[in-house]
């Protein structure tokens, strides 16, 4: 294999795969990136691919190929080398014993690689049908649900975001929960999602990769497709394929409160800042903050056996009965952070029932947080 590629083009490709490669795996080859050429001459391409066996990404980049071939080498080391090289053309020449000779300007590296045959197959998936969705909408949906997904590996069916088409509205919903809180968002993406007859659970890692793709500057539309076990996302020359989580997502609709006796509306920023301050004294990781609602007043308080107490009062339009409720302060702050709304409404039935938080201007975004018993 022998080729020349612009530094910026190569670096862009290597950046994309960095978070996919496994750093601490018992299969060392998974720390590698797979390079393979397609075509020959000035208008040829170099493909960069990586996988952790659950998520795979491949991107195609312009290159001048002098001699076709394939090779695999440490993704991190290659990225570190390329990042430090000057903005010039990089020349790569693979030697017979699987070394990559990398030359750029007057710098030269001989990087040990492995034969491409040693690299495992990437998850493959060619959906029957795909649809194009607006990247910005998809990004927002991911952001407003993924924060609530569980990181507890014993509850693998909660380690992702559930994607389903809502029968009544025809909208697409992303919802995630860790059993303590839940976040969902509905958006009309114009089209039903190809291949999605029932809901699927998209793993956190795959979705985080998709979010990165969506956040890239030139992202305008993303092509997505699913079947029961795999998902695909494509942006231009980059394709992301992931295995979906097999398992049943809990019947979450039962925990979404139907009624709420107590409710108030506050500017998001005022509530968030007060929570950040009072949260400084919340004990350990359990992080309880107590909310006392009285006429036109919300009192936030926390206490910590080692530190002391913190209190803050906020004026609020509230005329209901006096009530107290407590939450993990982090759960409240997490959902406020992604709602990007001027005002939010918080409502609940009683101190031991789930509370609901919605942006005042967007009834299609919702967070549910279970209270703490204090």
């Amino acid at each position, binding site marked *: 294999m022998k080729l020349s590629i612009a530094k910026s083009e190569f670096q862009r490709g290597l950046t994309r795969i960095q978070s996919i490669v496994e750093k601490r795996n018992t299969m060392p080859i998974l720390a590698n990136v797979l390079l393979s050429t397609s075509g020959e001459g000035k208008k040829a391409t170099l493909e960069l691919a990586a996988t952790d066996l659950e998520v795979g990404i491949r991107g195609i980049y312009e290159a001048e190929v002098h001699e076709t071939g394939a090779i695999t080498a440490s993704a991190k080391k290659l990225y570190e080398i390329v990042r430090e090289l000057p903005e010039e053309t990089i020349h790569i020449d693979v030697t017979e014993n699987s070394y990559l000779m990398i030359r750029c300007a007057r710098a030269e590296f001989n990087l040990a690689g492995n034969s491409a045959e040693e690299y495992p197959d990437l998850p493959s998936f060619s959906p029957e049908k795909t649809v194009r969705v607006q990247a910005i909408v998809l990004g927002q949906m991911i952001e407003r649900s993924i924060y609530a997904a569980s990181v*507890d590996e014993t509850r693998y069916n909660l380690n992702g975001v559930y994607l389903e088409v809502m029968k009544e509205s025809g909208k697409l919903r992303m919802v995630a929960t860790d059993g303590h809180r839940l976040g969902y968002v509905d958006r009309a993406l114009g089209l039903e999602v190809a291949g999605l007859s029932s809901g699927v659970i998209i793993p956190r890692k795959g979705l985080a990769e998709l979010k990165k793709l969506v956040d890239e500057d030139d992202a305008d539309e993303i092509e997505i497709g699913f079947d029961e076990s795999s998902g695909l996302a494509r942006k231009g020359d980059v394709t992301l394929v992931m295995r979906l989580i097999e398992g049943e997502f809990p019947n979450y609709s039962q925990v979404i409160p139907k009624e709420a006796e107590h409710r108030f509306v506050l500017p998001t920023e005022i509530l968030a800042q007060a929570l950040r301050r009072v949260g400084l004294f919340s*004990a350990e990781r359990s992080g*309880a903050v107590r909310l006392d609602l009285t006429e036109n007043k919300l009192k936030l308080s926390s206490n910590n056996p080692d530190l002391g107490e913190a209190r803050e009062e906020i004026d609020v339009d509230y005329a209901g009965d006096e009530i107290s409720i407590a939450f993990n302060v982090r759960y409240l702050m997490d959902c406020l952070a992604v709602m990007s709304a001027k005002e939010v409404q918080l409502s609940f039935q009683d101190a031991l029932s789930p509370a609901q938080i919605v942006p005042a201007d967007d009834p299609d975004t919702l967070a549910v947080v279970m209270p703490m018993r204090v």
Partner: protein
Amino acid sequence: MDAFYASIEQRDRPALRGRPVMVGGDGHRGVVAAASYEARRFGVHSAMPSVEARRLCPDGIFVRGDMKRYARESRAIFEVFRRFTPKVQGLSLDEAFLDVSGTERLFGPAAELGHRLRAEVRETTQLAVSVGIAPVKMVAKIASDVAKPDGLIEVLDDRVREFLDPLPVSRLWGVGPVAQARLAAAGFETVGDVARSDDGLIEAALGEWGLGVAHLARGEDVSDVEPYREPVSYSEENTFSQDVSDRRTLESTVIAHAESVARRLRNDELRARTVVLKLKLARRRAPGPRGYPLLTRRTTLDTPTDDGDVISRAGFALLDRAALSEPIRLLGVGVTGILRAPHSAQQLSMFDRPGGVERRSKLNRALDELRDRFGSSAILRGNLEPERAGLSLQIKRGEREE
């Protein structure tokens, strides 16, 4: 305590008295946990591979240790210690610091208290204990080592330097083989060499950390006797007598460790949030005992737990994540992220069956009572217990992270 485990065995089995006794596994992977003074004459010491001990002392008697008995003995000894002061800082089952300042009116001068403590420990347990008395902790510890076997040494305030100066630098806390070699290269052999030196030279040899060593060398240990430190992690591990790659054996080992760790959590009324799986691969990549690649995988639970079943399931998930492709030599399960239970505030859940968690903890309480009464193997999960070469339980104490 002097040769603690071995002394207990000799006390309880008269046939062992006066003979070289080694406590520990005698298999090809066993390690000596304690050696009687008779065995030490042959050069046997604790932490030595049993194979080597056997070579040095072919007539020595190997005794498989009984940690539970030793722990019981330890509790009795610590109770004696607490008759003299509440400020008792345990270092291990058989070592403790006692801060006896302010007890003079009750027990007289420290040396008198020391003699009395030795007598009371002997009376209670028929075991020998050595005592070191000094103004600072490190010097007291060294003095007790020098006093062994069955002795007492007091190092008075104005004699500290005199006592420390001739000792090799390796007696200082924190000075291991590497630091010792660096100090030797810089011309420091004895504690006195370090104590008399300029701080700059020590810093040059050991880095900034060397300043602490210089303080210790001058007998300026400012650390207090810390009566109790909160546990920060619990773990249990075993080396298999034969390398294991069978998933079911690995899983039943995970269960055995998880259940035991969970029981210790419940016993101390604690819960843990993070589960750690430790695996040592059987294929050695470098010479020496550290040559086996060690994998650790950890996962954080949504809800802190003291339930062995939850810890086991986390262990299985970590086993999946490790994606093993070769046999295992050692497996350990540990927990960190320790919280006192029950919390002041309890997070409510959305999907748990009503009463599910409470029922589980009732079951665990019932099982604990059975085991307390009839022994830890009175009731087991329906899994085979794998054969283990050596088992070790650990608790790390210290400041908990927030």
